[in-house]
């Protein structure tokens, strides 16, 4: 896959992730119930002590990460490629911890968070592929 195609894929995935994170952020800030297939799971996660870091909704941190990846996907420079891949990997590491929290501590699973985890995992693959497929410096 060419770098151009990878850039487009990363942008689409990042916008999708931003949509999920944005929805969860708005729901958290406005105390709106989250649409969840299995009742209670998303609400339990959204209201847990783990839903905020220093007063900032965890979903908003995800939103910022996705926006950073989306912006970095538009620029064809090494710092942009590295920033996108680093942000995606940071998101995956953080997401892995949040999965552990949901399953092992809160005992409730939020499907929106899991969907976001899938998106961020795909972004890790795409952003690192982008680095490997980018033109070598002259």
């Amino acid at each position, binding site marked *: 896959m060419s770098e151009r195609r990878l850039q487009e894929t990363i942008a689409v995935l990042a916008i999708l992730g931003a949509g999920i994170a944005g929805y969860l952020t708005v729901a958290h800030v406005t105390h709106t119930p989250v649409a969840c297939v299995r009742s*209670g799971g998303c609400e*339990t996660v959204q209201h847990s002590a783990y839903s905020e870091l220093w007063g900032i909704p965890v979903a908003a941190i995800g939103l910022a990460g996705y926006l950073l990846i989306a912006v970095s996907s538009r620029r064809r420079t090494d710092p942009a490629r590295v920033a996108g891949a680093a942000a995606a990997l940071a998101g995956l590491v953080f997401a892995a911890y949040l999965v552990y929290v949901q399953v092992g501590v809160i005992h409730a699973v939020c499907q929106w968070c899991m969907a976001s985890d899938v998106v961020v995992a795909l972004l890790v693959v795409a952003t690192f592929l982008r680095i490997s497929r980018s033109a070598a410096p002259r």
Partner: protein
Amino acid sequence: MSRRRLALVAVAAGALAGGALAAALAFSTGGSSKPASAPVGAARVAAMLEGIPQQGTELGSRRAPVTLVEFADPQCPYCGDWARVALPVIVRDYVRPGKVRIVFSGMHFVGPESETALRAALAAAAQNRFWNVLELLYENQGTENSGWVSDTLLRSIGDAVPGLGAKTVIDGQRSAAVERLLAASDALAQQAGVQSTPTFALGRTGSKLAFVNVPSLDASGIEPAIDAALKQ
């Protein structure tokens, strides 16, 4: 810089940033440190409620054929006796097998600490941990309005309930959701004309409930009424 070196820089930066975020969240929720002192009965309450569905102030399956409404005050000593002696048996024999659902309707007439305790428990309702907090309050119940419903106790209870945390129990007491739940339980008690605690109303789920005369505060005081409702 080579592609390989770029990828290594991204791996290092990403792993560091993600790990730092996870560590910060674990630290901010107290996940990396134990509370100063665990409340009395934490393990017993956790074991009693483990695996039983909670929805707000409801305990047990919504498909249970019988519903038991408990009107109680967190400071009322008789309510504490019932919670510590009768409830574990009722939960084991009726709630866990899916026969009975218990709905708690909180009252706060004993004094100002009743409302504080009730608000703390209701703050956990959004996370479906209401019963964990309520039962730990009863386990640690002190003399009425003696200062036993302290921030220290509430923090230790919040920390002792998996996935809850002291912050929710302390900061959530004045939330809009808690105000709504408190107003709803006040209205229900007033509408039902409840004069003392604990008072119980029982019946088939979805039908009109009737008050139950409970002659003793152990499980045998209410089991005959539950069994009769189950046979209806």
